[in-house]
């Protein structure tokens, strides 16, 4: 069973969803929770049986799909994907568990289970086409969730979300086809297997074009600065659960793909595009933070804030050294937890008041102290307070990128300032001051069901902030192998110097540091 655990992780929820159709709608929630819990347990088992010391792929599965065209059903996890898979199943679980009564709940839960399948698939896939299949498929349930349970603008938002991402990924698909074709030219056999592509050393010009093709797909998903405008709509209109999954997992697909595809496949291109992308990332950080500060809708604040944080993740990824990439991967997890929690929290107040306008609130700390406390905790995590989960990631990402550029890191570092500004402003508007609005006078504090979701998240936030090692170590191993691969593959001197050679890491680091001055 253990050597097919990934397939089980992927298809178990899908099958369960199929069965879900025949279950009566009164008992569907229990069913959904049970399935999600089993899924989560499975993913934990995956972690348990995962060999943290190994850097390569584990639990590999390989099954020919279209051998004539080199498409195989290849799965596997390493330190990079493992925790995102766990996070996904975790969020599906608490998402369903904390689902506040929605109209035709049944469809929602079935959809969520399908979504879970696609998410597990994306992060477990090791074949370009299989990856692409799940990548695209994940759009459909999200489209339905936003479009069917969303706010007044839901249709515009969902269609925009779908088409925007769809367009980007089609360009990416062409890139993949080129990659496969180059592999075919090099070896005489078609293959879409990522691990095969890793072995391919391309001339720099090809790398640049392919990098660009993949970049469009990923950047729209992340979403990076000029391509980010679908996100506020999607978040603004989506129901709570939709935003939670979207922010916690779906956005991570983009950043994950950067690390899984762009970096190891095109090391020289990555170096070439490092600074332009870093500039974009910094724009994301500062600009979106300012936009977030201007919002009147608390959910939009959180939405823009997650764009801002994705900027740091991108920056860490393109630090191209172990510290940075490890940091960015850790920050993916961290941001997943924190932004997910924040969206849940927004949902809590939305269920009570059916508005997300901050002007409607004020002085909530009087009426809902527990709520205020948890919100405060997540707020502090979001602004990167040490000993919370976010800090580890942000610290490492920035630390990593500092190696590449001082001034850019200084600019990106302003994240800790601007982030504090919009978050504290929002918190002040909502929780501090006297209770002015009559409707807020006697709101009930967070209920048991909501705590069911929030307490675990709070615990994770603190625990991983204090003791990130169990996650950091496996990530680190896998990242080291990737960085080494990049260094060995790279052909330009620029790349050779930018990407550290871990075989004799220390003094390389020193010398290139001197160089960077």
């Amino acid at each position, binding site marked *: 069973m253990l050597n097919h655990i990934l397939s089980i992780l992927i298809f178990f929820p899908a099958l369960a969803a199929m069965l879900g159709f025949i279950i009566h709608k009164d008992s569907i929630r229990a069913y959904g929770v049970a399935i999600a819990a089993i899924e989560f347990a499975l993913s934990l088992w995956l972690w348990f049986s995962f060999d943290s010391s190994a850097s390569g792929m584990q639990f590999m599965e390989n099954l020919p799909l279209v051998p004539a065209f080199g498409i195989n059903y290849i799965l596997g996890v390493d330190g990079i994907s493992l925790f995102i898979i766990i996070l996904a199943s975790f969020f599906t679980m608490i998402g369903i568990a904390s689902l506040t009564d929605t109209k035709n709940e049944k469809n929602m839960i079935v959809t969520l289970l399908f979504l879970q399948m696609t998410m597990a698939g994306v992060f477990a896939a090791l074949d370009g086409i299989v990856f692409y299949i799940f990548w695209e498929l994940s759009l459909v349930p999200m489209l339905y969730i936003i479009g069917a349970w969303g706010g007044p603008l839901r249709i515009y938002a969902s269609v925009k979300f779908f088409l925007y991402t769809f367009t980007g990924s089609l360009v990416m698909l062409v890139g993949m086809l080129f990659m496969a074709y180059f592999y075919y030219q090099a070896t005489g056999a078609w293959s879409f297997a990522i691990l095969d592509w890793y072995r391919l050393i391309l001339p720099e010009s090809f790398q640049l074009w392919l990098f660009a093709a993949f970049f469009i797909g990923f950047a729209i998903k992340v979403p990076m600065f000029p391509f980010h405008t679908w996100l506020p709509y999607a978040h603004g209109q989506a129901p709570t659960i939709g935003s939670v999954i979207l922010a916690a997992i779906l956005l991570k697909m983009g950043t994950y793909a950067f690390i899984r595809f762009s970096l190891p496949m095109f090391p020289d291109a990555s170096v070439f595009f490092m600074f332009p992308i870093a500039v974009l990332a910094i724009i994301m950080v500062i600009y979106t933070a300012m936009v977030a500060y201007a919002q009147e809708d608390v959910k939009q604040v959180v939405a823009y804030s997650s764009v801002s944080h994705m900027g740091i993740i991108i920056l860490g990824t393109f630090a191209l050294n172990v*510290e940075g990439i490890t940091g960015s991967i850790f920050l993916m997890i961290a941001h997943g937890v924190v932004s997910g929690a924040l969206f849940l929290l927004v949902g809590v107040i939305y269920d009570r008041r059916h508005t997300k306008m901050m002007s409607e609130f004020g002085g909530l700390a009087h009426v809902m102290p527990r709520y205020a406390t948890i919100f405060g905790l997540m707020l502090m995590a979001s602004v990167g307070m040490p000993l919370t989960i976010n*800090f580890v990631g942000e610290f*490492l990402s920035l630390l990593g990128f500092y190696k590449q550029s001082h001034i850019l890191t200084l600019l990106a570092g302003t994240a800790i300032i601007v982030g504090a500004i919009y978050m504290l402003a929002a918190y002040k508007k909502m929780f501090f*001051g006297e209770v002015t609005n009559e409707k807020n006078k006697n709101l009930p504090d967070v209920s048991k069901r909501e705590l069911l979701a929030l307490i675990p998240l709070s615990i994770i936030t603190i625990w991983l902030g204090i003791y990130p090692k169990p996650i950091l170590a496996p990530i680190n191993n896998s990242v080291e192998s990737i960085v080494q691969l990049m260094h060995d593959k790279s052909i330009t001197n620029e790349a050779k110097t930018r990407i550290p050679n871990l075989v004799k890491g220390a003094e390389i680091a020193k010398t290139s540091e001197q160089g960077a001055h």
Partner: protein
Amino acid sequence: MELYLYLALFSPLAGSLFAGLFGASPRTKIAGVVPSLLLLLSFVSSTVLLIYILSGGEKVHVEMMTWMATGDLYIPFGFIVDQVSVTMMMVVTLVSTVVHFYSIGYMDHDKGFNRFFSYLSAFVFSMMILVMSDNFAGLFIGWEGVGLCSWLLIGFWYHKESATWAANEAFIMNRIADLGMLIGIFLVYWNTGSLQYDQVFATVGSLDKEVLTWMGIFLFIGAMGKSAQFPLHTWLADAMEGPTPVSALIHAATMVTAGVYLVVRANPLYDLIPNVGLFIASLGAFVALFAASMALVNRDMKRIIAYSTLSQLGYMFVAAGLGAYWVALFHLMAHAFFKALLFLGAGNVMHAMHNELDPFKMGGLRKVMKGTFIMMTLASVALAGIYPFAGFFSKDLILEVGFVENHYIIYTVLLFTAGLTAFYSFRLVALIFHGEERYKLFGIHPHEAYKFMLVAMSPLLLLAIIAGSFKMTYFEMVTAVLPATEYHVHSAIAYWIMTIGTQLFVILAIAFAYKKYANNKVKVPDGTSKMENNLCYKTLSNQYYIPYIYEEYLVKPYRELSSVFWKQVDMKVVDATVDGIAGIIYAGGEKTRVMQSGNLSTMLKWMVAGTIGLLSFAVVFGLAVRYSGEIKIILSGLGV
């Protein structure tokens, strides 16, 4: 010894969590008493450690567990108790113990009682991490932790707009500085390959000047934020919105001195870059004078004390900047005692006066509250630096440092500031405790604070008086880790002249303050008097208009730019482009669908037209076929 280390470190945390349990429930004494006792325990264990160190014991260094480890980076939760950190631990635990016990009385009637103690102990915990950590990352944890707690405590009365505003201001300003700190840390890591103090300071010697300078500058920027040095000073005065014990603990004794501690910690680094040191010193001198001047005219009891704190921090930085790290640390310690005392006294007064802060509305309180009167007077004496109080030894030492290091400008500035200090402290004392009972006009019936609050304050009083006598022992101790430079004016005569001169100057200032404010002719100013209207006074009372400038030229533009970014750029440019492309495609469809007129004859025309078009193209091509070679070359561009 490690046991004591952990006790000292974690008992505040335990206290905080314990009080936190009662966070939501109505206030219970227990939630206050237990944390205070736990802090006492922490104090005791710190004392044990101090004695151990004093008795020539090795420095205690423990590594609890790994925090972050990736690539070459390795950051443990490591703690070190050496001469420097133990001093800080003593100061922190002592003052905070006192403040805790004091607060049990002070917060007696507040409904946030439990919350308060939870926050307060949490603060102490972060402060302990800050001073005990053995690496920069750990320091940064504490650094941010105290920032968080200070945010919580300044905004403790979150229903007050001003309080929450001040809290956010403090947090954000500190964040600005923390960025500098962070960059400093990155510099340290990428140049020395580690963040552990010992390894870092072992390798700094081998680095080139430029890098070191940048390190020094960025780390000091961090210090500037926490210690509220110009231009990041405005938050400290506003932070007085918090409960008075908080001001006493955080904004006088401990947190604000973290910056000084950082510079002292990093002394091997700053020794290598004297020019940065000089900058620090000059800034310190400037701030000393700057703050003191603002204290002269202020009409808010707590703000006056806050400015004096600011000014004293300036002194410390002068010492630290000039390389007299032990002096800085010594003044830090002494200052902690008497300044905390002063604040707590002020707290009593506030209680008595029902949170009235304007000293002009008090007067003659010495009759009703003797204890407080004595304590505050003595504290002010110590602050003014009269022999043999603590202030004399620490502050005059700094003056001497300035003199001996031949920075006469700094020396003069500091000397003058000493006079100002004496003046405004005693202006305050005089206004509060002497003269006629102006408060009667406002129908207030003041009363002395609880006995045990006074008792709780007494240790501070004692130390404020005798702290100076430890000077030599202290010197012996810390110079084990800090550069042991004796600062003595070489000729004895000069020394005596200086000392006595200073004393006379200070006493004159005091006398002047008394003469001006301790008489019965003092009226509650109503903004009409000539003095209040002259420019100089206005400038001072408006804090040189700096907060105004920040509001006008930083905050407002940021807010406006943000909304422009959102409404104009994001909505009208970025998003509009995307929708525009889609719109163009769709409109293209709407425009061209008329081609499908549904009329058969048009359809046939289209077919024929298409054929004709192809034909003509064929003819053109057929004519051009003799140039087909070239054409092929051109057109082969279509494929690939």
